[in-house]
């Protein structure tokens, strides 16, 4: 009996021990993902790594390969920033059309039936509001730690955030303003008007301009990149705020041209080839690499989307994966006159064999000429065919700055001359072996067409058409505008995109753009 009692006591003691809380076990710790402290301790370039991620979000859908996405959506590859820019700036405009449909793409390609449930508007909206809190989060975190080059890095992060807000101003015309000060609040923020966003972006960029270096590593922002964005903001200021700021735009363009050290490349097409990282002309590239930086939303979307084995040998353009999607319309290639006889190098960048000049049906691949301006082959060395593109996307380049100079001068800005404007335009034309024009020919209408010839497929077209008053209404028609084969008028509502319904639902302070 004594033995048993001992056992019982022993048993009860054990029980008591076992009952003692294991609560500390509930604080589980990861081993692969890192806290900020661990990250900074582990990798001396951790801060650049975070910055790389933020630049990368302009071209990649996610950091876990092309099938990953930072934001949720039906298809990860569709959510990349650059892909959204092509979809929303090019397909909605006159020069480029796509045939897939993809549950909402037809509405962009035909500039009709836009509604707040279209996922393609949401992808851009959500991408902006991925970049904004992410950059803000890192800016705040860096403020609390001691790292080298802090001001430079923070300036770059602020630039990326300003670029994201600029996208909001241009595409949606409003939004919410998340800043270092209000980041972290969970109650829905108030709506910020186009003017408020404009003022914020302007003040940020002016401040960053003074802090960022004149030069930087490849793919990163410098003074000229910041000034290009300022110039974009000012040249469109009348659309955005109702107030003309062409002189301010010209001031910045002058600085880009004068201080940036960029020169026009000898060959036009070299700027859109696999080795364009050697360019002297590109001011701000979005990097792509067939092996280390894969995305269905960087230039891969442009190159593969424009290629098809149905009508071309895709190896000629350095891709091993063609998607049979995008074709230009006569609103673009029609600007060169007869493509066969045109001396303009830029007129040669359409694939006409097996294709029809007219786009009777935008869903038929052979209607319309694919643009082969962008390709994955190298310009100055042999190259290989890969499923992903290695061609960088020239988001800003000197030719754009030249044309913006000319436009500002024509619109009456101070700080430039008509002769210089003409010289810049002819410099671009001469580079492509197009005929020199006279000062009499240099009109705003000519400039809009020249911007198409030079810059189409580079993500500017819709903004340009709106600035020139040609996007909405019926004064200028292009194939499939308003869902009509020869074009139809569209309402002014379409100058901005609808605010996605997911955004409206999660923030009741937001209101829909009028007309949607």
């Amino acid at each position, binding site marked *: 009996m004594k033995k048993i009692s001992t056992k019982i006591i022993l048993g009860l003691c054990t029980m008591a021990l076992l009952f003692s809380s294991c609560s500390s076990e*509930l604080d589980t710790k990861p081993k692969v993902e*890192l806290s900020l402290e661990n990250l900074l301790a582990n990798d001396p370039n951790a801060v650049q790594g*975070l910055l790389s*991620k933020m630049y990368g979000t302009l071209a990649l859908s996610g950091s876990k390969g092309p099938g990953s996405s930072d934001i*949720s959506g*039906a298809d990860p590859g569709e959510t990349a920033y650059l892909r959204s820019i092509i979809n929303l700036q090019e397909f909605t405009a006159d020069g480029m059309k796509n045939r897939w449909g993809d549950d909402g793409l037809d509405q962009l390609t035909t500039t009709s039936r836009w509604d707040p449930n279209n996922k393609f508007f949401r992808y851009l909206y959500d991408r902006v509001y991925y970049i904004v809190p992410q950059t803000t989060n890192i800016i705040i975190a860096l403020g609390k730690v001691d790292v080298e080059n802090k001001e430079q890095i923070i300036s770059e992060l602020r630039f990326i955030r300003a670029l994201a807000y600029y996208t909001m101003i241009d595409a949606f015309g409003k939004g919410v303003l998340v800043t270092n000060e209000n980041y972290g609040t969970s109650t*829905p923020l108030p709506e910020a008007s186009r003017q408020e966003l404009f003022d914020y972006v302007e003040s940020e960029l002016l401040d960053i301009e003074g802090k960022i270096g004149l030069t930087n590593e490849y793919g990163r922002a410098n003074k000229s990149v910041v000034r290009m964005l300022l110039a974009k903001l000012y040249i469109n200021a009348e659309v955005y705020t109702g107030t003309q700021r062409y002189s301010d735009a010209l001031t910045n363009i002058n600085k880009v041209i004068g201080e940036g050290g960029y020169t026009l490349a000898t060959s036009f097409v070299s700027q859109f080839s696999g080795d364009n990282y050697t360019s002297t002309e590109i001011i701000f590239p979005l990097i792509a690499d067939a092996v280390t*930086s894969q995305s269905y939303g960087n230039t891969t979307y442009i190159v593969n989307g424009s290629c098809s084995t149905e009508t071309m040998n895709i190896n000629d353009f350095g891709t091993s994966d063609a998607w049979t999607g995008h074709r230009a319309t006569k609103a673009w290639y029609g600007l060169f006159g007869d493509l066969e006889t045109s001396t303009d190098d830029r007129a040669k960048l359409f694939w006409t064999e097996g294709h029809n000049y007219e786009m009777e049906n935008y869903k038929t691949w052979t209607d319309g000429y694919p643009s082969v301006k962008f390709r994955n082959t190298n310009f100055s060395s042999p190259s*290989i065919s890969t499923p992903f593109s290695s061609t960088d996307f020239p988001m800003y380049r000197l030719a754009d700055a030249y044309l913006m100079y000319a436009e500002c001068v024509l619109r009456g800005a101070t700080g430039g001359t008509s002769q210089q404007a003409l010289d810049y335009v002819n410099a671009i034309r001469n580079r492509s072996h197009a005929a020199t024009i006279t000062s009499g020919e240099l009109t705003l209408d000519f400039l809009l067409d020249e911007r198409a010839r030079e810059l189409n497929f580079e993500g500017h077209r819709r903004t340009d058409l709106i600035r020139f008053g040609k996007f909405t209404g019926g004064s200028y028609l292009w194939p499939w505008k308003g869902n009509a084969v020869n074009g139809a008028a569209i309402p002014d509502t379409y100058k901005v995109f609808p605010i996605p319904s997911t955004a409206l639902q*999660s923030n009741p302070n937001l209101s829909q753009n009028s007309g949607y």
Partner: protein
Amino acid sequence: MKTIYTKLLLLLLLLPFTALAQSTLKGNISDATSGQPIPGANVIVEGTSNGTSTDMDGNFTLANVKKGDRIVVSFIGYSNQVVEYTGQATLNVALQEDATQLQEVVVIGYGTTTKKDATGAVDVVSSKDFNKGAIANADQLLVGRSPGVRITNAGGQPDAAPNIRIRGGSSLSAQNNPLIVIDGVPLDYVSPAGSGNPLAMLNPNDIESFTILKDASATAIYGSRASNGVILVTTKKGTSGKPQFSYSANVAFGKVGKTVDMMDSKTFTKFIQEYHPDLTNMLGVDDPSNALSDDPTTPEIEGRILSNTNWQDAIMRTSIMTDNNFSASGNLFKVLPIRASVGYLKNEGLVKTSDYERYTGSLKLTPSFLDDHLKVELNAKGTQSKKNAIDEASAIAGSLNMDPTKPIYNADGSYAQVTSGTNGKLDGQYNPVNLLNERRRPEEIKKLLANLQLDYKMHFLPELRAIVNMGVEASRSNITETFSDKAFSAYQLDNTDNTYKYHPGKNYGETQTITNRTFDTYLAYTKNLTGFVTRVDAQAGHTYQDFKNDGYKDIYRYNSVTGEREVAVNEQNPNNRYYTKAAIESYFGRANVDLADKYLFTFTLRADGSSLFRKDNRWGYFPGAAFAWRINDENFLKNSQVVNNLKLRLGYGQTGQQDITSIAGYYPTSALYEPGDPNGQYLPGYNTYSPKAFNDQLEWEVTTTYNVGLDFAFFKNDILSGSVDVYKRDTDNLLVKASVPSGQYLTNEITQNIGSLTNKGVEIDLRLKPITTDNFSWEVLGNLAYNIGEITDLGNRSSFDPAEIKLPTSTGITFIRQAVGQQPYAAYVFEQLYDSSGRPIVGAYKDRNGDGVITNDDKYYTAMRPNWTFGFSTNFTYKNIDLSASFHGQLDGQVYNAAKLQGGWTDRPVPNNSNSLNNVLDFYNGAADPRFTNIQGNIPLSDYYIENGAFLRCDNITLGYRFNDVIKNGYGSIRLYAAVNNAFLVTNYSGQDPENFNTLDSNFYPRPRQWSFGLNFDF
């Protein structure tokens, strides 16, 4: 210690010989209704302590019997039978089930009760009511057998995931599978790498019963993990009598039932000639004997050799499954009840090379010490499985896409494949036979599930027991994927000489170790009293469980220049390691109080802490209460000849949900930075890091359940018995991955607590025994359940789109939408318009809002998942013959026929970026409508593709015959049987199989129809 185990093992092996040395009264105890043997029945000589109990197959051996002894045979839940011993050599007794006794033990978690005393909605499905025939995995035993328990396996894969839903599902984005507890160890929801089915590690032959806890008064004891119900699996245990052995063997031959109605070679040729005359030169292969090309104006195809390949047949085979099991049970040294079993299953799936092999072993020891004061239970189950994982989606899609005029092999025996260009680039859909044959991906798992339970009854206070239960669930997975010499998947361009080359060798590797631990300690107090309070039964304790998953991957990529496969070096995570750990800790208490022996009360409280939430939100408190009234014990019914049992049950309870690991990972509340993959880098020279989205406000999702139930048994022998339950289940604080105010969180959608969901339903369970005689019995079991869910709130949102279910179009289209006011997982689609002949008008949809244009606002919601589900089974026995059949199905529900979307448009064969034609559904026999030339625009979102998913499936028909006295009189029995599993399917669904968990029928791995033959030999 080690030597003791060796001795035990030796003894176990010697058991057969000692058993044969016995000689005395033998016999078999069976269930009078089903004819199934009753294991564990007691056989004693009346008035003595001389007794034994039956083995797993109902056999017993009783020594020292004299003439005139009265032999009493008893088993809980059955009426006792007394037989006088007159010298007969064998004694076979068929026991009548006795529902009025209701003494059947019901496992309820941290304790047991009886059917009579149960207060919650608890359903027991025991081995005699299991589905029969060729059963590879434990979940198949239960399909259709319990009302409101919907088990939909993913398809015909040998280890298909079961997808179990009890009463719908209580959550939207969080875990919806029930908690499965095997012999007291709650299982992880995460299956080891390489296993699709968490129950695949169990040998179905080892299972004694499933107990399903449905309402919260029953499940609240499992608090944090019980919102979706609990399935308690109890395995067979050793008998207290003489050693018993059992061997069973089964072989099953499986065939595909219905295949997808694609065109054959002749029809396809006609179709191409008619619809795409410019493509006739792509049919078949070039005839090298001439230089002709086809003249589209003639009916013949000139210059081409056409094969007639049925690609679905080409990838499928007659599947063979063999299953062998041996078990031994007995009472070692008369103090150590033991059961040990070994099993070997080889299951060749319908699709070629989809092979599965499993070895199982189990050991259960249930000794008692200290005059039965200390009861010990040791369970150990080991499994080793090996599966060749096929590239299922590609192979099955390939079998549907491939042009039937193409051969499988070239004349020289090599795989046929269209190529393009001069460098041999493979073109179009890869030959699916190559995909299956030229890749090997053995996925090996070794798994151990073991627990030791000590149950100590206090010497000074026998009503009080202390219980300690320690469990471990550990597995190790090894996956190696290799290509053989001619694998098309590894045929890569070498840019140095512009040719394509094969790259045999390793392509992927993974090693994973999972270690989950369970630790329960609790006190239990049970006392029967006289007076107004007739019984008190209470438990209180603590439980801790953790889940650790640690693994490494070998990832390869192809060199973009040479095409060689090389290791994809990930500098930030060189071994591609993944590591997760989660833990749950709980305190629980339960009290059962019976008043006047007819009013039963149960109170439960559990406090749960989860590692997934931050400290301040970590703990949730989940109460439960139930009341049951045994009406038949009231005076006015006590002597009724009609009403044998009538019990009213009322239950209320709350349960919690925290498992959001599939949508938010294991550290959802912490600010963490994740390294990018080698192909997700950006600025040259730096490694990228992503700040991960998190939500530090996360807290418990709470489900409140109300349940009213009635248990009944009427007439002599309980001719009609069963139960009816009505319930309502409200889930609040739903853990949902949904949009957040833009810019205020690190990404657009995060997991958060918003919204509410409600489920309402009725369940009816009936058991009818129209005939019960000595030689002939007939029993019918049936159940019917209705459940309707509704999303009642989503914060400010009216809806969100779950990203996991997408239509198989180019970039994927979401057609399911979770919307307020709708059932969960409803489709959001356009209403198709039809012409007067009933054919769809392509692209024409109803303008539901009447604004004159078709926009997204014209879409409507239509529920996809079934509301009405049912199951029934029937058993006949006549003497030694038994015949049984079981069925299950659903009365409503819908399926999106994605096979029709993918293969049902006339431009489908037109090559896109290739020189190959794609096969299509047969437009000539109505399998698809040729008006559809493409599926662009809104076509995939038309309700034209949504079909009625109602069905009735015959799960099995089994015919058996039992030979008794095989070895000698009263000793040894053999039952032979033949069975058809998945015997037939009744449905109006035009596709292959409407039983589809995600309600999206696309590239489906068909469920085989299996004919099996087997034997059970007990001795």
